[in-house]
């Protein structure tokens, strides 16, 4: 099973500047684990104390994973995953 993952500019230093990479995993946790094995360090930018970072948005197809079970969100063949840092501040 291979899932296309779109990488935001700020994380492209981890992926040798690739805008999209391929990873595997049947849940978001598994997918992030695989991404971190391929691109060491990227997992830390997505997770904090075992949870999704508050100001990182991850989408499966068009849906925010927070509405799909967060890290437990199921992923199936043909899904596409998009990572976007929140545009936010004070």
């Amino acid at each position, binding site marked *: 099973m291979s899932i296309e993952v779109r990488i935001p*500019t700020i994380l492209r230093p981890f992926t040798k500047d690739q805008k999209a990479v391929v990873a595997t995993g049947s849940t978001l946790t598994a997918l992030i684990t695989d991404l971190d094995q391929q691109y060491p360090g990227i997992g830390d930018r997505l997770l904090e104390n075992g949870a999704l970072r508050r*100001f990182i948005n991850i*989408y499966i197809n*068009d849906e925010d994973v927070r509405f799909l079970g967060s890290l437990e969100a199921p992923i199936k063949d043909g899904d596409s995953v998009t990572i976007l*840092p*929140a*545009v936010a*501040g*004070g």
Partner: protein
Amino acid sequence: MSLTISRAFVDAIIAQSRAEYPDECCGAILGPVGSGTPTRLLPMINAAHSPTFYEFDPKDLLALYREVDDNDEEIVVIYHSHTETEAYPSRTDIAYAGEPGAHYVLVSSRKEIAPAIEFRSYRIIDGVVTEEEVSITE
């Protein structure tokens, strides 16, 4: 480094900041990829609805990036307003700045300077803030 922006966009951002006061307002200006020129203003909803915080709604954020990709555009400017403090990036602005290629524009309508409005632009890269000159074209 500098930002060149039309008077119409400056006026529109200031008008939006007044309309949404006392909440912070926010939005983006897009331009053709590689041009660095802001050509299309997209006011965004501040999902935080707060006088001290702003956040693009996550659903709108995805739509925005899809649109940018489909149209061969880039995000040239990310703007928001401060309503009580100067137009300088706050600690949270710096912590969450995720677009190293964008100009971060801040406007301030704090009452100490009323009726004047501050309009300033910065690069925020790896936690380092660099103010840049703003040239307004008529």
